């Protein structure tokens, strides 16, 4: 069935709520208003105000409450409207929830899902448009999941809710309204930790997540390059085996990221693969990222900021044809080191 990503999310939550009475949802304006991005449409009506709860503007408070509830019998899903807002509550996720199992010697677990919208493209400006994966990726005890559309949003959300440990789900905000063929029900469930090969080809391995997956696919098509395209789907732990096997075959890795060049999530993939697949690499690992600047507001600059289909195509072509690292556009234009 074709559905929008926001519907897929709501349906995944609904399906888990039907199956498991301990699943509940909380966040700002997620109940009566059905979510600022309508990702909880229908949930209040079906499950009532005890299981679908509006909260005050208190991210620390309700992330903490979700953790306490998770440890003592519920499976809460928390919505963080924009990922930046976790900046007032990061402690609860990384310093508490992620370590609950460890610091209880396994007596308490924290089956908690923290969902947040991320990314640029809708004109929300510098404080509402980042992706911020790196706040979570180096935190043992946390899983991080990033759907690339309705199908993966549905399948991964169900697994995230079932997971016995805390899972952070980062959802590209621009995808909420996009439609995609989506398998629902048990068949639609996608296990965590497993990447997906969306295209196959021999000249390069292109790895991406979230809204960049679609752009990477288009770029590969446009460039006419024969490449594997891997949607990691789970960023922690990412599917090292899948990527390594592909790079062993293609000899080239290109990571397409919506994050700053410095410290973006792709550094983890690029650094690992550059090391573990050294003998297979025919060209330098390449990261195609945003420049190291705050996200600009205007529509035309947001599109300059994000890796474009053209830019990705050019960079992949460059590395395949020359075997050298394509210089990022902002360096070429002398805008920044």
């Amino acid at each position, binding site marked *: 069935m074709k559905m929008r990503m926001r519907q897929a999310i709501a349906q995944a939550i609904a399906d888990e709520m039907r199956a498991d009475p301990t699943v509940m949802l909380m966040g700002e304006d997620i109940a009566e208003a059905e979510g600022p991005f309508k990702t909880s449409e229908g949930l209040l009506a079906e499950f009532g105000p005890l299981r679908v709860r509006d909260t005050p503007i*208190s*991210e620390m*408070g309700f992330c903490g409450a979700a953790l306490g509830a998770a440890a003592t019998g519920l499976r809460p899903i928390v919505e963080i409207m924009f990922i930046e807002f976790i900046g007032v509550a990061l402690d609860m996720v990384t310093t508490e929830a992620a370590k609950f199992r460890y610091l209880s010697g396994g007596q308490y677990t924290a089956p908690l899902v923290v969902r947040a919208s991320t990314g640029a493209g*809708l004109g929300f400006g*510098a404080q*509402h448009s980042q992706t911020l994966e790196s706040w979570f990726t180096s935190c043992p005890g946390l899983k991080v999941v990033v759907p690339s559309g309705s199908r993966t949003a549905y399948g991964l959300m169900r697994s995230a809710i079932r997971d016995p440990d805390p899972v952070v789900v980062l959802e590209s905000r621009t995808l909420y309204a996009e439609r995609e063929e989506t398998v629902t029900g048990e068949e639609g469930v996608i296990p965590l930790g497993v990447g997906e090969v969306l295209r196959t080809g021999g000249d390069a391995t292109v790895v991406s997540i979230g809204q960049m997956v679609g752009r990477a696919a288009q770029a590969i098509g446009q460039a006419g390059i024969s490449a594997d395209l891997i949607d990691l789907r789970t960023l922690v732990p990412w599917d090292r085996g899948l990527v390594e096997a592909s790079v062993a075959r293609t000899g080239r890795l290109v990571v397409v990221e919506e994050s700053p060049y410095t410290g973006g999530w792709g550094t983890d993939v690029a650094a690992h693969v550059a090391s573990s697949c050294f003998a297979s690499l025919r060209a330098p690992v390449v990261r195609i990222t945003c*420049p190291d*600047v705050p996200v600009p507001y205007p529509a035309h600059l947001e599109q300059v*900021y994000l890796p474009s289909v053209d830019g990705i195509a050019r960079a992949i072509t460059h590395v395949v044809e020359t075997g050298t690292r394509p210089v990022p556009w902002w360096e070429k234009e002398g*805008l920044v080191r």
Partner: protein
Amino acid sequence: MMTPRERRAALADPVACLERMMEIRSFEDRIKELFAEGVVHGTTHTCQGQEAVSVGIAKVLEPADQVCCTYRGHGHALALGLTLDAVLGEIMGRTTGAVGGVGGSMHLCDRSVGLLPTSAIVGAGIPIAVGAALASSMTGDGSVALALFGDGATNIGAFHEGLNLAAIWRLPVVFVCENNVYGEYSRFDRTTPIEDLAERGRAYAIPSEIVDGQSLDAVVGAVEHAVERARAGGGPTFLECKTYRYSGHSRADAATYRPEGELDRWLARDPLSLYAQQLVGLGVLDDAKVAALRKAVDDRVNECVERTKAAEPATVESMFRNVGGR
């Protein structure tokens, strides 16, 4: 064109205050249209109904005083003195914008009139204003700081920590809560277990007051009092201005959650009408003059829209300016 400082100084005149409130109203109405027409990208938060708070504060404060506002900041910015062009330019992503067009609707700033970068994070401005007051108390420059925030923001940790810090350090800061009844789609009584937010000042031994946010004079009076206390070394004050936003929370919100009749009750105490009546009552204006003012303001806003549509979009180079960190 008047500079922001001149626009600020103009508020000494009651008629200019009325005009400024009208300007804000007209501007916000026009912004709503521009978004509806798809001319503008992104989101915006307008403040129709809350003009008396903005203008009341701006009238009392000096340009050297520092103000922290929020994403619902067009009215505050215009009141403090920013030009229509600077605010609209920013909203439309033009080089003419207050911060060069890279910030957008939620990010306005003008140091010449003490407007610190507005924040899109609920509550963030509260401790930041405390810091501006701290700087004032240490440099002895006599300035005060003022934080503007909503009813919803009184539930976030930064509110608690900011007020506590200001009290302990007895800093020259005024906390102004615009209780406009809603935080996004949530009526404040659904997120807040007390009726009067002014109660919360007690937890920090901060003098607190409930203010009629629809009355320019009431706002001016309360802010004057608080600013006096601050400048005299008497420490912080917390003001809860009871007001209302006529629009939804943001562009996307039609405000269907409002109970029948609520908007009308507030419209009956519209701050612009109340103040206009008052000036007419005092013989300062008559109805024709009020209508003329309104017309002039609308024309000015329309001209600004045309100018801004024609203005240069923010440049790629500007994305890389003012980044710091290297």
